[in-house]
């Protein structure tokens, strides 16, 4: 339940913790040395055990699936070799940490390793005098139970939906795709988490904590048509039906000759017309609703199912989110036929009804209403009431959230509302008269009212058009802030620069980090530390030709390859790598001597201000002037010369550049002489 940033809230420990974090990030495989090293750090800083545990949990949660196992080994090594207080801190979140990783890991071998790991936690540390197990049984057992249930569920699932869509054929259970974006967890997995896993809460994220978007549930299962008033059931129903229709359409497209699908589609379309016409009223509406729900539950999940409102990963992804290719949303089945987790269907309704009439029910009342609350303390129930009272609408989700918040369900369940969604959503098609629960189950798959719709809109398309007017100045537009921050989640920790979460953005960032590394290295080098000086400013022509580009994100290769097609660099910036052993050369145009120099950036000897001219090395500026005088008149140069009327030859005053070594005097004096050919 690391709810706060390890950096922000524990500034005393933050140094050690962030050191620890850095080393953790470097851990890519099962490296005994590194793991021992990390264990030693943990051992030596037990006073910061809490911060370190938090960092470790966060790391396990956020790192790429392939790195989870090594990180878990670190956890294992720490608890076995150091023991308390780490066992205490890590034990608290162990369920989450472990189950989440298990869910994200796709590889049967790794899973088996994790199973084995779990087994050792039930036993005493090998060779230790202490006979107590590594973690106490009440920590390990829930994990084991959850694993067993989950595995059974997976098996059932495979049996049920064998002939389904392509992604189903993978032998491995559905997974998180290595992304930390919990909100898009498919329903099946949620079902298993519903037993009591703690979902990773995005808000816990250090960077996100300040302004994170809505709770994940709001982002899930958004139907194609946004519904304004979920308690008005007709629009809800309509939305539901139309989502059903689109899914059936997709299915129909996949297998157009399946009479079953054809029938279903026809029926549902009819139903839709009826409902839209308003010809369905009263009790029959309820019947329609329940049949729709049942129908939807029976439908296989579809990739083409109503997904338009899914958030693109950009919005959810973290600055250090591991790369991932597969789409995070695979199975948007709103309704699950998964067996109920821990509360009987309708059980909550009683409680809800109690709470809904405004007064605070007594504890016994609540206990009778919900058997699961039987052995819950009075204080906790009180806080349930308070939380519920605070929530304006009384739907199941809120109630569950309230329960979660007050810790009633903490032992067996998570801390965030989304853990409970599947519970509500997976209720079997209820009896016709239990409208409430029906509504609730539908509500839980719809965004609750009042969710700012802007937040779930794709960030890119949300680029606002702002007219040029005084009135438009005053309105605060969060989307503008978002375009500068959240849309570019990938931040450089050195200079604060942001990058897009796209492939390109990641590539740029890694180049950018390399650039930082290189320059830092050069700045730290005692040989380059001294004797730096300001360069001369550039002249007009050079400045005009110079295309502003960011050297920190431009590859060296691109720069090398660019010599030919380069307008963006002046000719004096081009160079030719010196052939081995050649240190001197005569410019084939002006016949002046050229000497090679060592270029720091290229780590090689080069002729500065050089280009190949008819196969021989010549001054790049000489070549450029010849080219210029034989056509290709630079309009700009002419314009400037006219306007200024100065005696200066355009392009000749290039006294100094990083690679050019020609003296300013020579450039100035020799600007005419260089045109003499041979």
């Amino acid at each position, binding site marked *: 339940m690391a709810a706060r940033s390890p950096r922000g809230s524990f500034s005393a420990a933050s140094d050690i913790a962030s050191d620890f974090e850095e080393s953790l990030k470097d851990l890519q495989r099962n490296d005994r040395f590194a793991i021992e090293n990390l264990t030693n750090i943990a051992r030596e800083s037990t006073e910061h055990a809490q911060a370190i545990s938090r960092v470790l949990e966060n790391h396990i949660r956020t790192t790429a699936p392939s790195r989870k196992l090594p990180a878990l080994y670190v956890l294992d090594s720490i608890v076995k070799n150091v023991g308390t207080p780490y066992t205490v801190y890590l034990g608290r979140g162990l369920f989450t940490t472990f189950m989440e990783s298990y869910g994200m890991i796709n590889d049967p071998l790794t899973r088996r390793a994790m199973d084995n790991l779990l087994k050792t936690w039930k036993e005493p540390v090998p060779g230790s005098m202490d006979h107590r197990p590594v973690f106490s049984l009440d920590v390990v057992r829930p994990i084991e139970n959850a694993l067993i249930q989950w595995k059974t569920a997976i098996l059932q699932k495979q049996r049920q939906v064998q002939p389904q869509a392509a992604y189903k054929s993978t032998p491995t259970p559905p997974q998180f795709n290595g992304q930390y974006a919990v909100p898009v967890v498919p329903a099946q997995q949620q079902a298993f988490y519903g037993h009591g896993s703690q979902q990773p809460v995005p808000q816990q994220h250090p960077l996100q904590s300040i302004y994170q978007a809505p709770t994940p549930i709001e982002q899930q299962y958004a139907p194609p048509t946004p519904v304004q008033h979920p308690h008005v059931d007709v629009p809800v129903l309509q939305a539901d039906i139309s989502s059903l229709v689109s899914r059936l359409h997709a299915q129909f497209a996949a297998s157009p000759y399946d009479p079953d699908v054809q029938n279903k589609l026809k029926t549902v379309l009819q139903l839709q017309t009826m409902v839209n016409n308003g010809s369905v009223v009263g009790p029959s509406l309820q019947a329609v609703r329940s049949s729709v729900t049942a129908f939807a539950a029976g439908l296989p999940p579809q990739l083409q199912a109503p997904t338009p409102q899914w958030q693109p990963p950009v919005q959810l992804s973290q600055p250090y989110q591991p790369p991932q290719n597969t789409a995070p949303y695979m199975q948007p089945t709103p309704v699950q036929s998964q067996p109920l987790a821990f509360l009987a269907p309708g059980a909550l309704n009683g409680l809800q009804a109690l709470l809904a009439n405004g007064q605070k029910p007594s504890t016994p009342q609540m206990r009778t209403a919900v058997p699961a609350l039987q052995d819950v303390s009075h204080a906790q129930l009180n806080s349930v009431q308070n939380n519920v009272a605070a929530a304006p609408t009384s739907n199941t989700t809120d109630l569950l959230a309230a329960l979660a918040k007050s810790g009633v369900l903490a032992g067996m369940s998570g801390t965030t509302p989304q853990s409970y969604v599947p519970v509500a959503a997976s209720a079997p098609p209820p009896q016709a008269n239990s409208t409430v629960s029906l509504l609730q189950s539908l509500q839980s798959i719809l965004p609750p009212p009042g969710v700012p719709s802007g937040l779930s809109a794709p960030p890119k398309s949300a680029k606002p058009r702002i007219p040029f007017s005084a009135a438009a100045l005053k*309105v605060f537009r969060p989307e503008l802030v978002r375009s500068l921050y959240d849309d570019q989640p990938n931040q450089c*920790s050195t200079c*604060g620069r942001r990058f897009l979460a796209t492939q390109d953005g990641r590539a740029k960032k890694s180049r950018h980090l390399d650039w930082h590394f290189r320059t830092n290295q050069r700045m730290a080098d005692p040989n380059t530390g001294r004797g730096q000086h300001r360069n001369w400013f550039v002249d*007009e022509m050079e400045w005009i030709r110079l295309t502003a580009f960011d050297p920190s994100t431009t590859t060296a290769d691109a720069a090398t390859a660019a010599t030919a097609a380069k307008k963006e660099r002046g000719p004096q910036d081009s160079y030719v790598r010196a052939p081995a052993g050649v240190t001197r050369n005569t410019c084939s145009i002006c016949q002046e001597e050229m000497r090679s120099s060592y270029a720091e950036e290229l780590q090689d000897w080069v002729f500065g201000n050089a280009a190949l001219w008819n196969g021989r090395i010549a001054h790049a500026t000489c070549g450029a002037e010849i080219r210029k005088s034989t056509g290709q008149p630079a309009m700009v140069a002419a314009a400037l010369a006219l306007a200024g009327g100065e005696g200066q030859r355009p392009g000749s005053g290039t006294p100094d550049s990083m690679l050019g070594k020609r003296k*300013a005097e020579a450039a100035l004096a020799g600007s005419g002489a260089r045109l003499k050919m041979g």
Partner: protein
Amino acid sequence: MALPGLSLPGLGLQPASTPAQGNSFAPPIEQVTRTENLPARSEWRFETSFGSPYNLRLLGGHAELFGVELATNQPYDLSGVQGAIFTWQGCQLEITGEAESEYAAEETEYATEWLNLHGMLETLRSERPSDGPRMLVVGSDNTGKSSLIRSVAAWGVKAGRTPTVVNLDPRQGLLAPPSSLSAVTLGSQMEVETGFGIAPTSGPTSMPVKTPLIYHYPYASPTDRPDVYKALATRLALSTTSKLEEDVTAKQSGLMVDTPGSLGLTDGKGNISEILHHLISEFSINVIVSLGPERLTNSLSKRYSTAKGHEEAIPVLRIAKPGGVAERGEPHMKQLRSRQIKQYFFGSANESLNPHSHSIPFDNVVIYGAKPLASATETSSYGAAEEEEDDYDPYTDNPTTTASGSGTSNAFFEKVTPSVAMTASLIAIKFCPANSDESTIRDSAVMGFLYVADVDEGRKKVRFLAPHPQGWGNRALVWGGWPEAVVDLVT
């Protein structure tokens, strides 16, 4: 003639004690470190003096200084800065050091306006990719013009644009010492501490460098020599426009022109400065942002926001002055200028630079003295070279005349022999040869600045501090009365 590496006192010191850091003789008094929690859309305003260190660290959340985002857990030295750390989402700051004043403020409507201005510019950029916004910001002194441009430019860069910023205020340099008018196309991220970043140096820099184009206007106000100012503006506009024509993305990203406060004043009848009209037409401005009084905005809208004949209408937008803008007194401005000059030669704490000393006989150097307008007519009657050096005493203020167009005399410059009066002042090296005619010298771009370290009239030698070890050849040198002498540059 160049004597690179001639020993200069103070050069071998640690970066921490370079002049850029101010005098470090005072041992740091006990530093109080405190943390501040800022709610969303509030800011931390501070005024710090040049001498005492003031460090800021972002512990959590997000924050920016004039549009440039702070990295988490990086220390930023903000001594000698009047500014505000703004947060859109809320943040936690750790502050070390003494400030003259500091407080958290939540009246930050200005930031919304600025951000919306950025949004409007982005809209223009995407709607008219072939013809980006060319914005002129006008207003009197201390209204936040430069901060606005800095923020909007930084956001533009963050949005992936490469805006071009033009500074037309000779009192503060942009990537260059004062007395320069500069233009720079921002292709890479801007910097928190230095604002626009670093001009090119020979060595590695912690941030990508920005390459500016510099012209030299050695007067404090455009009205000191309106003719020269307008000529330089024309020249700068031509170069800038040419650059934008060459570079499609830069053109789409647009232009942002910062003007000195004196152009934001209206005369008694509400007429706008004629120089301002000149700038608007030369830079083909298509967006005017006024930070000045309502009166200025009204005059501008009357003149520009309705189409007149062949001219297209230019929208005029009035933006309120931010609450945090403090009056920057002349002492502060003077220190700012002196710091800019120091940084030009010595670099900043992160990138320390070594200037080079060049000792040159009087005979080998051609220096043109830039004449103030009022004395231009006066001295021409005297005509004696010896007398004039007193007229250009940099310690006295230049007489300011608002009369425009009276400078019919062509004498912008005249050759002067080095004199003690030049000591500690700045001299611009122009790209043009020393024997060019007057208008060429006037319009030529600046290759670099020299600092007159010492004039030995007895041995007829002048010692320059140059940023670069190389000589500058036979180029024209221009000396003006602006900026004022910085005596303690070489101590």
